[in-house]
């Protein structure tokens, strides 16, 4: 027991339990409220991280969620995100330990995103929304405190990025002309889901000169062609923001058109990748014509309608490593 709130906050710092920001000291009541909101008991296992031999239990998740500043109703999102990260397709140990320095990008789809006020608009990756800031933070605190992902130990990131504090957004399902990501992945519109991807930082690109989808995407492809994932073939998230979305909507340009165009316009020759030392070996004459796609298939561009209504900017987010090592996973968010 400690005497007051300030001392409690300092204890959590002193024991190495925070991400560098102050945490909310949990109480019996706040932990219980977190568990009740997801219909869980403390000993229930949310996921098991095989490579770390760590059982992630609901009780520990609830403590970290309170510390992160979450409302209890955020808890089901956090639980589903952790389940997705425990899925063998996500392959937790590689991307979270690697010097490559990925964060866990989280996309929330379905009605829960509106109910929890998860931002999909202005200042998409910036501060200002409690749900975006604290859901991602809670997941990172669980990674740190439960899954052993400590900087300098089992998190060997050379650089890392701001998304490692929190990297959680929703999709603009209200204004988007396109099916949301969860529907594309076989869920019903009224279901809520979270999609996780081990990802590097978002990169924005600017195009206010084109009035066609392909003009905008030509800029996107120029930026992506030699980007962090070049030569490795991870998945990429493509964030299409307001003004660009409007242009595409007028043309009737579908998400599958975006994926196809980007797949066709981002391959790079092996010769170029060798010249810039992204893949090994001497350049041979055949390398000039041997084209390597940026991703393995068009579906590896995950297209998301999000970002502010004003401004001719959109963004791409390179996944970490390669799709062979980790891939995005979508799980339903279940509420009691």
């Amino acid at each position: 027991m400690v005497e007051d709130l300030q001392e409690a906050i300092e204890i959590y710092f002193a024991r190495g339990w925070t991400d560098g920001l102050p945490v909310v000291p949990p109480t019996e009541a706040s932990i219980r409220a977190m568990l009740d909101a997801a219909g869980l008991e403390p000993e229930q296992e949310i996921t098991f991280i095989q490579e770390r031999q760590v059982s992630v239990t609901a009780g520990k998740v609830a403590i970290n969620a309170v510390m992160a500043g979450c409302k209890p109703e955020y808890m089901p999102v956090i639980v589903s995100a952790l389940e997705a990260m425990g899925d063998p397709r996500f392959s937790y140990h590689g991307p979270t330990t690697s010097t490559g320095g990925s964060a866990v990008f989280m996309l929330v789809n379905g009605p829960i995103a509106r109910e929890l006020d998860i931002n999909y608009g202005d200042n998409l990756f910036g501060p200002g929304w409690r749900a975006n800031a604290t859901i991602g933070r809670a997941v990172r605190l669980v990674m740190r405190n439960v899954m052993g992902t400590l900087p300098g130990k089992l998190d060997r990131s050379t650089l890392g990025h701001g998304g490692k504090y929190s990297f959680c957004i929703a999709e603009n399902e209200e204004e988007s002309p396109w099916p949301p990501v969860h529907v594309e992945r076989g869920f019903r519109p009224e279901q809520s889901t979270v999609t996780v991807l081990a990802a590097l930082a978002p990169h924005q690109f600017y195009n206010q000169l084109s009035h066609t989808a392909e003009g905008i995407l030509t800029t996107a492809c120029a930026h992506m062609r030699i980007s962090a994932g070049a030569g490795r073939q991870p998945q990429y998230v493509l964030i299409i923001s307001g003004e660009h979305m409007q242009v595409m909507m007028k043309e009737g340009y579908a998400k599958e058109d975006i994926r196809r165009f980007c797949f066709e316009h981002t391959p790079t020759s092996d010769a170029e990748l060798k010249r810039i030392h992204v893949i090994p070996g001497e350049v041979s004459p055949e390398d000039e014509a041997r084209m390597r796609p940026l991703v393995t298939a068009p579906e590896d561009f995950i297209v998301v309608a999000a970002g502010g209504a004003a401004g001719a900017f959109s963004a791409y987010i390179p996944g970490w490593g390669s799709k062979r090592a980790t891939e995005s996973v979508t799980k339903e968010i279940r509420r009691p």
Partner: protein
Amino acid sequence: MDKFQVFDPTTTSKEQAITFVPRPVSLRNLRIGLVENTKFNADKLLLKIAAILEQEYGAQSHMIRSKRNAGVPTDEKVIREIADNCDVVIAGVGD
């Protein structure tokens, strides 16, 4: 002012009992297993080590198998194959 109870947010790993085969006194006539993790140059490094062990330490032979990816555990099939056919194993990280 209420007192605050401190709740530990951490978990420790489950303990794993890992037993190692006794270290051989000599490599003479032993079969070397190599597990490369797909990182650039990992295979070259391991094959050079195997050549040294064969030429200078009398190891009998070597076999090399790959992981699916550097970030995942070695496939059970590869582990079984190495266990059935090798006396010592070397795993390495390239880059």
